């Protein structure tokens, strides 16, 4: 077991060296590699896999995404600001009507339109670059 843990530690260093991320690692582990046939074999496999990727390119998809993207950008250019304004306007009117006709306690009646406006704006201004992680349900599906 101790041998396995040592091998994994060495291999992580060797992998980093192979990937050009830790140039000195090979020299540090020469003795281990010389005495460990499993690690030597692993190193050969790593090199072989890497060679197989040489010249690999992504297959042409035959798709033309530009037309769809262009149409969506053009339509959103004209629609998005108006949609946001309409949504905020409708929520303000709706909130005011609630205040007038529903017997809500005052702070709640005032907070409803404010919360709705914040919700609309946060959706419009959401950051698409916020990194998402693999959801557990995707993992369950083997993705």
């Amino acid at each position, binding site marked *: 077991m101790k041998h396995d843990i040592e091998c*994994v530690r060495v*291999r*992580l260093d060797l*992998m*980093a060296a192979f*990937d050009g*991320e830790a140039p000195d690692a090979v020299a540090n582990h020469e003795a281990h590699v010389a005495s460990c046939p499993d690690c030597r074999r692993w190193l050969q*496999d*790593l090199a*072989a*896999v*890497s060679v*197989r*990727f040489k010249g*690999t*390119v*992504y*297959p*042409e*998809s*035959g*798709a*033309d*995404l*530009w037309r*769809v*993207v*262009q149409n*969506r*950008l*053009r339509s*959103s*250019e004209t629609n998005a600001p108006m949609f946001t304004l309409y949504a905020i306007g409708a929520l303000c009117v709706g909130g005011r009507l609630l205040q007038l006709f529903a017997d809500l306690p005052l702070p709640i009646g005032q907070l409803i339109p404010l919360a709705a406006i914040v919700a609309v704006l946060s959706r419009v201004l959401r*950051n*698409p*670059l*916020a*990194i*998402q*992680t*693999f*959801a557990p*349900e*995707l*993992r369950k*599906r*083997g*993705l």
Partner: protein
Amino acid sequence: MDDAAAIRACLTGNVDAFRHLVDQYQSRALAHARMLTGNAADAADAAQDAFVDAFRSLYTFDAARPFYPWFYVLLRNRCFKQRTRRATKPESSAVPDKAIAPAVSEEQLDLWRAIDQLTAEDAELVVLKHIEGWTYDELAEALDVPRGTVMSRLYAARQRLTAMLSGEGL
């Protein structure tokens, strides 16, 4: 036109300049999206959404950096949303279609078949490392995990790919 010029033109409101980026990266984006969604239709939708997101977020892009790693974060997010929303059944996906790409060699087909057998997490790491040539730091940033996690996952993913290629995992 290069990426930087296209992005500058887009930022002045020229939508058509964005075509350069879509044409330049769509094959790569679709291949990655198919890997992450496991489904060609979802991949196309996710890639379109990601390009639209990219155009809208270009003002946040640091022009000193390459475009695709930045775009990949958008694409990845869209792929996850697509999978969660649709819950469509994965199909055998990453393998190039000989009818569309007849120039792909048998050896490359074997490689893509082996990648296709990996989980999306493994396939993503292996492809970004071996085909895109991303560094550990770039991978860590895009996947939002520590560098050490990238290394241990990559190590495991390569082990599994080696097993697939040698026929042990198939």
